[in-house]
């Protein structure tokens, strides 16, 4: 137990230490304070929104149903988050060191699992607790209901972490190990996630409300059988997941190798070579792809789904014509864009290899451009193609189509280049694994939260302008001009300020 405590404490301290980014304690504390502030602000915003939503149901007596939908959404988001910690069998850098110490493998695993549990709990609190707070605000206080909710909130991360370990085991052992086997592993994991989306969509829109109400009431009444099943199931899945991952740890790592030595026959520029290098490294890293391929795959899946006119009833209810669909598509594409930020850790992932870029005769702007352009190329061509296909089928008006084409791309540019700049400000070169860089670095958190704020503000701007008395042409042009200008500013900042920071690193 002592070893588990020491290891978990070590992981948390090194994780929090990693959030510091730069060595300066003041800057690190400030940066950490910014993260906490953003988290609290987001929590407050979500709670406020949930309170407004629940208020509307308070008089109907269906507040439990609102709580239920909150749980479904929260579980879905937490599972998505947990799935992104799947590594495809990649060992953390500290594993060798720990295995050489008088610590059992099971203790290492439990400590890793516990630290992952705590991280998932942070996400659960953000996504589910606002619904609980709103529910408690509009219903008479019940201690039993509170305990039921607390226990459920504590069990959900156990379930999601266990599931992620089980999927990791399956992807590592059951999928092939060829050169781009990581791509297969990433696509397999993301396909599971997409399947979850459809399950979620079914639960939200098709499930009999009586069933959801009954389930939530069991939770609120602390029904013994329900709670026992929940606790038992969550603990069992968690234990199974940890057990399977321990098996993985014992396994010898297999890496791809070919007998063919392929020389490149054409000369390329340093920029193209850097871009190719970024692409190669991306395609060879399961954990990186799993955390960033959801956006591109979801964009394609959504675009295909949109061809079946799922939003026609909603458009009719809101009194919008076909062009109204553009806003929904923009929101979906922009949402996927802010979830896809590989550049926010591209500098950190250089890690101890950073000396290669620093010692080479390449301009800093070339390095930064290559990283930014990679982030853009991951999404923008796909979004452009999907937008054009949707336009050909749906026939939006010109200005709507231009907005649909340019706004998500501009957001992609902001996220791609902004991610590079944020990572330059908060690099993390000494992480114990790529997963730690991707999930636990300050630049990751800032990018994730900043992206949500950006899209939220843009959505609010569109809403205010469209519902105002302004002609529609201005309601579309103003946000478009603002976001394009912002993209230009971010790129310029990255290549000027970013260049100076890179030089000092």
């Amino acid at each position: 137990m002592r070893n588990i405590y020491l290891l978990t404490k070590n992981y948390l301290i090194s994780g929090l230490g990693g959030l510091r980014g730069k060595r300066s304690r003041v800057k690190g504390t400030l940066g950490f304070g910014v993260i906490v502030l953003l988290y609290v602000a987001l929590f407050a915003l979500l709670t406020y929104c949930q309170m407004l939503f629940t208020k509307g149901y308070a008089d109907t007596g269906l507040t439990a149903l609102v709580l239920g939908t909150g749980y479904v959404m929260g579980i879905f988001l937490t599972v998505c988050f947990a799935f992104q910690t799947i590594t495809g069998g990649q060992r953390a850098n500290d594993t060798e060191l720990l295995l050489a110490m008088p610590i059992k493998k099971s203790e290492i695993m439990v400590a890793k699992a516990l630290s992952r549990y705590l991280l998932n709990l942070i996400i659960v609190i953000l996504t589910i607790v606002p619904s609980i707070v709103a529910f408690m605000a509009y219903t008479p206080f019940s201690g039993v209901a509170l305990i039921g909710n607390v226990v459920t909130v504590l069990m959900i991360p156990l379930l999601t972490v266990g599931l992620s370990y089980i999927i990791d085991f399956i992807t590592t052992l059951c999928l092939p190990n060829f050169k781009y086997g990581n791509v297969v592993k990433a696509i397999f994991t993301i396909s599971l996630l997409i399947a979850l989306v459809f399950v979620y969509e079914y639960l939200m829109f098709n499930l009999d409300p009586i069933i959801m109400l009954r389930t939530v009431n069991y939770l609120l009444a602390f029904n013994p059988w329900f709670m026992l099943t929940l606790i038992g199931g969550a603990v069992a899945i968690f234990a199974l997941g940890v057990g399977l991952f321990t098996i993985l740890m014992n396994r010898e790592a297999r890496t791809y190798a070919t007998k063919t030595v392929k020389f490149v026959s054409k000369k390329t520029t340093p920029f193209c070579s850097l871009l190719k290098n970024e692409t190669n490294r991306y395609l060879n890293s399961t954990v990186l792809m799993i955390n960033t391929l959801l956006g591109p795959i979801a964009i394609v899946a959504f675009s295909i789904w949109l061809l079946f006119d799922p939003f026609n009833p909603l458009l009719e209810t809101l009194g919008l014509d076909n062009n109204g669909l553009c806003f929904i598509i923009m929101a979906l594409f922009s949402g996927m864009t802010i979830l896809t930020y590989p550049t926010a850790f591209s500098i950190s992932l250089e890690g101890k290899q950073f000396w290669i870029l620093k010692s080479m005769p390449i301009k800093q702007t070339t390095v930064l451009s290559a990283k930014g352009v990679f982030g853009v190329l991951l999404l923008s061509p796909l979004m452009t193609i999907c937008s054009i296909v949707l336009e050909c089928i749906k026939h939006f008006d010109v200005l709507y189509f231009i907005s649909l084409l340019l706004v998500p791309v501009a957001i992609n540019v902001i996220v791609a280049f902004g991610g590079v700049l944020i990572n330059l400000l908060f690099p993390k070169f000494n992480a114990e694994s790529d997963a730690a860089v991707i999930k636990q670095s300050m630049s990751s958190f800032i990018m994730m939260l900043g992206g949500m704020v950006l899209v939220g503000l843009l959505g609010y701007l569109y809403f205010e302008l469209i519902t105002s008395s302004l002609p529609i042409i201005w309601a579309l042009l103003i946000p478009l001009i603002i976001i394009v200008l912002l993209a230009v500013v971010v790129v310029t900042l990255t290549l000027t300020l970013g260049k100076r920071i890179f030089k000092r690193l």
Partner: protein
Amino acid sequence: MLKIKNFTKIYANGKVGAKDLNIEVAPGDICAFIGPNGSGKTTTIRCIVGTLDFNEGEILIDNISVKQDPLACKKITAYIPDNPDIYNTLTGIEYLNFVAAVYNISPADRDARIKLYAEKWNLYQDLGAMIKSYSHGMRQKLVLISAFMRNPKLLVLDEPFVGLDPQASFILKEVMNDFVKNGGAIFYSTHVLEVAEKICNKVVIIKNGTIIKSGAMKDIKADKSLEEVFLNA
């Protein structure tokens, strides 16, 4: 080829990395840079190759200032760090292709040089494997291949023999000798004084960030061993 004049590096926390160093390495020289741990060797080397900025002084590579034109200096310099941390997610040949592209080496030259050095160091058959499967010595060899294939004018090495098997070490010494015979210059830090004695014609001994002895190997050694000189410095 390499001129370091009044070079000083003081870190942000006040620690003196190097103070007022003056070093000259001409074409044809192999200069050993020796000193105890934490004496400023790696600091100096990192400033030479442009991965670390410095406070005062001047570093010239082939009469080009590292501060004023770092890109031109990097084009003619090859650096091999003490720890060969390179991209684990690439294969050996992918890494070499990447380096060759950045240094603008023609495909024909690149193919020929990679084959030459990879066969010398017995790594050719492993170039198709992922770097993450390489041992420390294999990574060191790959970095050496990537350095020599560029035909640099100045080679800067930080503990190049660490991790190499005896055959690879022998080959490295031969390659270094051929390199300087063709007009190149080598500046390398090492703790292996016996090798430094045999192959270097110049030596610089540094302690606490300052040079305590510098000059031709035969003059510094006189009738003692380099180890004795170092320990008594």
